[in-house]
């Protein structure tokens, strides 16, 4: 049965929406504010045990032997597992690229500091950690590979001997007439950039309780899973279980940002549960474990990039060479971040040709994981900085060079050379708005005055695309198969007229339950409180993925509207009978099923639903007695990528223009952000305060990435940033309060015209800050190309400037 999903707010069966499009207070908040949300560590099951994991202190070593010593006989210890158990009971999990993975516990060798080697289940975490201290592992250390450039050399030690090299992927992708573009260009600017490892660090680390059923040979896990269905599928593969005997229950969780991880922890706790005769085993990752060995790290990058332009500042080609240090295995799916840049490779600009020279290499560092933004944050910084370098040389203001290169508003949908299609946009409007908000002219004047006083004031102005609603085909070049990312929901009305929305994902922070409730409350003309949103586990939920890739707002709202539409069709049929009319003459509007053009011939939705459940005699033969409907949505028009990775991948293209004013202390190199303006166009905003929250959250992570956050490894591939004393997350004092303006260029492809915005400003803020820093340093003739731009690094540049006359 075909269902039409409303394309605009005006298509909803409500004359004046009360909920959708407004900043309504979130329905999930009372639970969270009162501390009653059931985060995984709150869950206690009968006879539950606690897991602690013994981890390798070496980055690269062979395991010669494991002696459990007194660990097993310690009071409170119930089970211990090692690589032997993993070998007996598990397979390597899927990796991306394929075949660069291991088992959940090391067997013959360890490849990164923190790799799990053994695990204990005991009556408390305290006792389990005591037990770890009794386990002796004999290591034979191997030379560690800490430098991705050295890892490429033929004499380099190998992370996986069987591969014969440390190169996971090496390809050059060419799009359009790239060689001609560079040959014929009037100007070519080339620069190298270094982006250091950063990562998600949600406030809640990963946690899981695994329960093995020894009779049924099935597995049930509660956990802080970002995508429970995805994690469940992985477990069927690693643990060799039938797919309908793995049940994952996702708890509300404390953020994820792509980097929750948890595959190994789930497998390890499952093995312990198996060994402990089926007792549930809880593993809560502690923060040091997370930083060192969790889903915590991403984007360890060496870039060399070039921009080719015509005399008038029109860019005609972009080449990006990327050496991506993925770490010891490809288990973390961090390679997705190397592929996603293709989705917005040339940014907001009508650059017709491009080249992506990509090498993904293995070293003895932590396997990289996804992190919000999934790769474009560093890529956008590279592109935007090149635009500024060009602008400076050509004597153009950064606003002007961008203006000359924007894809014009009448050219959408627009296909970029790397194959993705941008749905809609008006980049110049966003630029103008940002210039107006920031009083840009006055900022430049302020800067000119400041420069006379020897102050280093910098203005960053950047425009980026923030792609939304991902598809698997976006990661085809690193080996991801398939197309279509389903999101399914079930909407039901009960006999008393209350509505329940059943979804496949748990609370993560984006406010999606509220959006779902807003949609249904307006659709069926009820109060927001009349709608309850309930998460279902992987065994009960329709096909789904959950949050990720800025998809859920669009995907869930599409599924909700689809289900609502199917339900409406049933209600219409039933109401037609009850109102002695025909279905084509009955419509839903403002909570009433009514005969068109016949005032008074109407019934409330609740009454029709109740009739379906209590008066089977009054139902038409082709309607089941169930005021419920399911709908599974996936983005239309997705096809497999071609050999070059070209495809329509991300469905929507939100756009942001950021203007930032900052000052560098010329004596110390410290950066102080003074003003920050954002003009953001993400189409229709289903809940504006949710959207602003996503944007501002992205700003904070962007500030962290640009100025503070960095995982540091030494030459032995030992992690030096092992606590929050050294990995610096921004606090309320480091994040600027930003002034935001909304522009709305609706998407022609999505329900109600909304675009994905969940990843938000992290796509843009690092570029904005780095460009502002470089704007401040420009008169000194030095460039900041290493991220984060720590005070020490900036000071070194200032010193370099003083030496060069």
């Amino acid at each position, binding site marked *: 049965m075909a269902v039409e999903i409303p394309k605009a707010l005006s298509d909803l069966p409500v004359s004046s929406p009360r909920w959708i499009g407004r900043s309504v207070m979130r329905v999930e908040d009372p639970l969270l504010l009162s501390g009653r949300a059931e985060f995984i560590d709150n869950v206690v099951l009968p006879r539950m045990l606690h897991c602690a994991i013994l981890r390798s202190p070496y980055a690269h070593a062979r395991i010669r032997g494991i002696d459990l010593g007194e660990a097993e006989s310690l009071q409170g210890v119930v089970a211990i597992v090692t690589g032997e158990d993993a070998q007996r009971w598990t397979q390597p999990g899927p990796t991306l690229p394929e075949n660069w993975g291991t088992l959940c516990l090391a067997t013959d060798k360890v490849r990164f500091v923190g790799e799990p080697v053994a695990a204990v289940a005991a009556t408390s975490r305290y006792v389990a950690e005591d037990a770890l201290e009794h386990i002796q592992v004999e290591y034979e250390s191997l030379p560690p590979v800490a430098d991705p450039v050295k890892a490429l050399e033929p004499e380099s030690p190998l992370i996986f001997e069987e591969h014969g090299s440390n190169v996971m992927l090496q390809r050059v992708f060419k799009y359009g007439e790239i060689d001609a573009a560079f040959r014929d260009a009037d100007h070519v600017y080339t620069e190298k950039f270094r982006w250091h490892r950063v990562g998600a660090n949600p406030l809640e680390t990963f946690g899981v309780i695994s329960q093995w059923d020894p009779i049924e040979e099935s597995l049930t896990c509660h956990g802080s899973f970002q995508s429970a269905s995805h994690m469940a599928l992985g477990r069927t593969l690693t643990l060799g279980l039938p797919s309908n005997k793995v049940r994952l229950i996702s708890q509300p969780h404390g953020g994820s940002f792509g980097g929750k991880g948890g595959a190994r922890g789930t497998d390890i706790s499952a093995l312990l549960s198996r060994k402990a005769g089926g007792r549930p085993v809880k593993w809560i990752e502690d923060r040091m474990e997370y930083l060192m060995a969790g889903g915590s790290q991403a984007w360890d990058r060496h870039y060399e990039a070039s921009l080719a332009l015509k005399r008038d500042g029109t860019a005609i080609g972009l080449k990006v060479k990327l050496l991506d240090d993925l770490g010891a295995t490809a288990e973390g799916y961090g390679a997705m971040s190397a592929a996603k840049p293709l989705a917005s490779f040339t940014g907001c600009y009508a650059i017709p040709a491009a080249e992506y020279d990509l090498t993904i290499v293995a070293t003895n560092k932590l396997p990289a994981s996804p992190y919000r933004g999934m790769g474009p944050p560093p890529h956008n910084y590279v592109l935007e900085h090149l635009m500024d370098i060009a602008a400076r040389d050509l004597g153009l203001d950064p606003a002007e060079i961008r203006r000359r290169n924007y894809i014009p508003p009448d050219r959408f949908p627009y296909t970029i050379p790397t194959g993705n299609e941008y749905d809609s946009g008006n980049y110049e409007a966003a630029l103008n708005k940002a210039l107006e908000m920031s009083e840009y002219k006055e900022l430049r004047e302020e800067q000119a005055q400041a420069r006379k006083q020897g102050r280093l004031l910098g203005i960053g102005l950047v425009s980026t695309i923030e792609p939304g609603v991902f598809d698997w085909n976006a990661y085809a070049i690193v080996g991801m198969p398939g197309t279509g990312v389903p999101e399914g929901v079930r909407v039901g009305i009960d006999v008393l007229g209350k509505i329940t929305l059943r979804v496949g994902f748990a609370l993560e922070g984006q406010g999606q339950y509220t959006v779902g409730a807003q949609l249904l409350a307006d659709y069926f003309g009820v109060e927001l409180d009349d709608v309850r949103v309930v998460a279902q586990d992987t065994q009960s939920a329709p096909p789904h993925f959950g949050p990720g890739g800025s998809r859920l707002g669009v995907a869930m709202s599409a599924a909700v509207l689809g289900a609502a539409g199917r339900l409406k069709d049933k209600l219409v049929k039933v109401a037609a009978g009850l109102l002695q009319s025909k279905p084509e003459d009955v419509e839903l509007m403002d909570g009433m099923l009514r005969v068109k053009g016949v005032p008074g011939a109407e019934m409330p939705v609740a009454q029709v639903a109740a009739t379906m459940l209590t008066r089977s005699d009054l139902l038409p033969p082709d309607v089941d007695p169930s005021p419920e409907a399911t709908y599974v949505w996936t983005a239309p028009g997705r096809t497999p990528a071609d050999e070059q990775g070209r495809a329509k991948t991300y469905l929507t293209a939100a756009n942001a223009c950021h203007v930032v004013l900052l000052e560098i202390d010329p004596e110390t190199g410290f950066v102080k952000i003074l003003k920050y303006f954002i003009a953001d166009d993400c189409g229709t905003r289903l809940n504006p305060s949710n959207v602003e929250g996503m944007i501002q959250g992205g700003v904070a992570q962007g500030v962290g990435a640009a100025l503070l956050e960095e995982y*540091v490894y030494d030459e032995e591939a030992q992690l030096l940033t092992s*606590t929050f004393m050294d990995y610096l997350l*921004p606090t309320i*004092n480091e994040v600027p309060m930003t002034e935001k303006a909304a522009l709305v260029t609706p998407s022609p492809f999505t329900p109600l015209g909304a675009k994905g915005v969940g990843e938000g400003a992290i796509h843009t803020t690092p570029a904005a800050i780095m460009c502002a820093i470089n704007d401040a340093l420009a008169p000194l003739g030095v460039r900041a190309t290493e991220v984060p731009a*720590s005070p020490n690094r900036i000071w070194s540049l200032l010193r370099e400037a003083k030496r060069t006359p």
Partner: protein
Amino acid sequence: MKPPPFDYLDPRTVGEAVSLLRQHDGEAKILAGGQSLMPLLNMRMARPGVLIDLAKVAELDYIRETDGGLTIGAMTTKRSIEDSVLVQKRQPLLHAATLLIAHPQIRNRGTLGGSMAHADPAAEYPAVAIALDAEFRVVGPDGERSIGAADFFVTYLTTALEPTEVLTEVRFPALADRRGWSFMELTRRHGDFALAGVAVTMDLEGPGQCSGARIVLFGVGPTAFRVHGAEQILIGDRPGQAVFEQVAKKASEEIDEPLSDLHASAEYRRHLARVLTQRALLQATARAQV
């Protein structure tokens, strides 16, 4: 990250605490505010067999005026020091330093004595103690003794306290008239440990000549320390831009081997010490002239 097993004792007097320390002979550690010790315990980097909590020892939490100066009990929290009007009036340097320590939650539990005894190279209080010529009252099995600030801080995380001794109070002598002061540090985030810091006191006499000065650097070496050579340049001279530049340069040169870590290289720390010294001298002068 759970602590290893240990026994816990909570003596009621200093004498009891001392005798417990002796009894457990190297296996025992004093627990004061816990803000430095607890992370180490949680990480299992400290493994004492016994923790001796001073929280219930009577009379270690006080701020008293003594001969125009202040005497503060070792278990006085940083928050009490922050909130004390007496401290604000009599020892503004100590007060200003307190405001820069970490965050309210840490200051609510962290103690003066704990901070001094822990002697973190980037901690604020040791620098204040040295700048103000504080006296440390210490009690051990052989009785009481007094240690001057100059002798109290030995090296990285090490003080002159014997394993069986307890620090009971710190006395900050009265400030001279026309004493200018400044306390500055540079941190990557608000409340972080200092990459470099300086405490300055300056006495001006008559027509504005500097008659005394103390310049104490912290965060750049194994302990906070005075840069005597730099002070000497200042004494006898009139404060001014050129002198301050000279003094600051000398101060930075007096750091033997600046600490180097992933947040700041040795060179950078040396440079920051110079910049901060100069800025602090300017501020101290302005205060002295008021």
